[in-house]
């Protein structure tokens, strides 16, 4: 009985994530540099990241041992991730006429360096970086986050 309920619940979750994914295929940025092994997890596919690869909303970037990646988002935000990192772009909206929008990203584990772009000037409240324990609001800043892997 319990198993059936759980399965139904899982099915519901899959449905929700599929619907969410369909409307979220928006371009957010581009991979500018890759060292070593870097992949982009998109929907259920795993793609190899190369300089010039587009980054879409809902993508997760994963770096391997001794690997790094550099990404520029459309508002000019610069992101770089160090070895053994997982970074998800939960949300990215940018209007290049008004320079307004929103950015929400999660560093599940690893290291991330951020140079804030236009969004952190025009839409301060809407620029958020997360780790499993902390929520960071950036106010026109450059900063580093390092977070340890949890049950990974």
């Amino acid at each position, binding site marked *: 009985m319990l198993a059936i309920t759980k399965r139904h619940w899982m099915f519901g979750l899959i449905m929700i994530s599929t619907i969410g994914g369909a409307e979220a295929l928006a371009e957010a940025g*581009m*991979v*500018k*540099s890759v*060292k070593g092994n870097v992949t982009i997890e998109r929907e259920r596919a795993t793609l190899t990241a190369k*300089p*010039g690869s587009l980054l879409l909303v809902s993508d997760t970037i994963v770096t391997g041992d001794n690997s*790094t*990646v*550099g*990404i*520029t988002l*459309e508002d*000019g935000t*610069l992101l*770089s*991730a*160090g*070895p053994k990192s997982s970074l998800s772009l939960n949300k990215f909206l940018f209007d*290049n006429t008004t320079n307004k929008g929103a950015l929400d990203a999660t560093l599940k584990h690893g*290291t*991330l*360096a951020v*140079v*804030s*772009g236009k969004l952190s000037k025009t839409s301060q409240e809407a620029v958020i970086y997360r*780790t*499993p*324990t*902390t*929520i*960071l*609001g*950036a*106010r*026109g*800043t*450059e*900063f*580093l*986050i*390092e*977070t*340890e892997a*949890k049950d990974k």
Partner: protein
Amino acid sequence: MQIFLESTFRFVTLLFVISTLGACATGSDRIVLLPNKDGSPSALILKTSKGEKILDKPYAAANVAENGSIKPSEQSAESVKANYSDLLSAQPERPVSYMLYFISGTDELTPQSKVMLEPVKAELKARASPEITAIGHTDTVGKDTDNDILSRERATTMRNLLVTYGVSGEHFAVAGRGERELLVQTADGVDEPRNRRVEINVR
């Protein structure tokens, strides 16, 4: 069976306590505010289940434990360099903007801006996977509708010119804003050289 489960439970609890203690000692997150390259003030606001903290000085840092408690700490240019040099060297190049100016009523560059084109060309060609936008503008002389067309022509001409010079046209967008976004505010019908421009952004 009951006893076995209980002792397993105790063992797991003990493991959990040990790992939590370990995390408290090292902290699960380390966050460092870096100085802005342009020297402007900046701040970072941290929120966890245990509270809030603002970092607002260069190299101010915080260690966050897995349970959410925040401990202030401090880093320096040296320690950041020692611990995060790989990460920082992976940062993409910073976006750059250029302004080019035009002769009244045309899509022809002023002599000074023609000279400026050389460094623009060099920069655009040197970048890895450049994404470029050219945004054209006019002054307030002439009709709005004509200025919309002229501003776009200026941007398109710059794009074509730079592409013939070998700049990648793959991610090179153009737009015209007419006289809607003046650099120098003027009344209608004013010949203002600084408003006749194309802004080239590369990231």
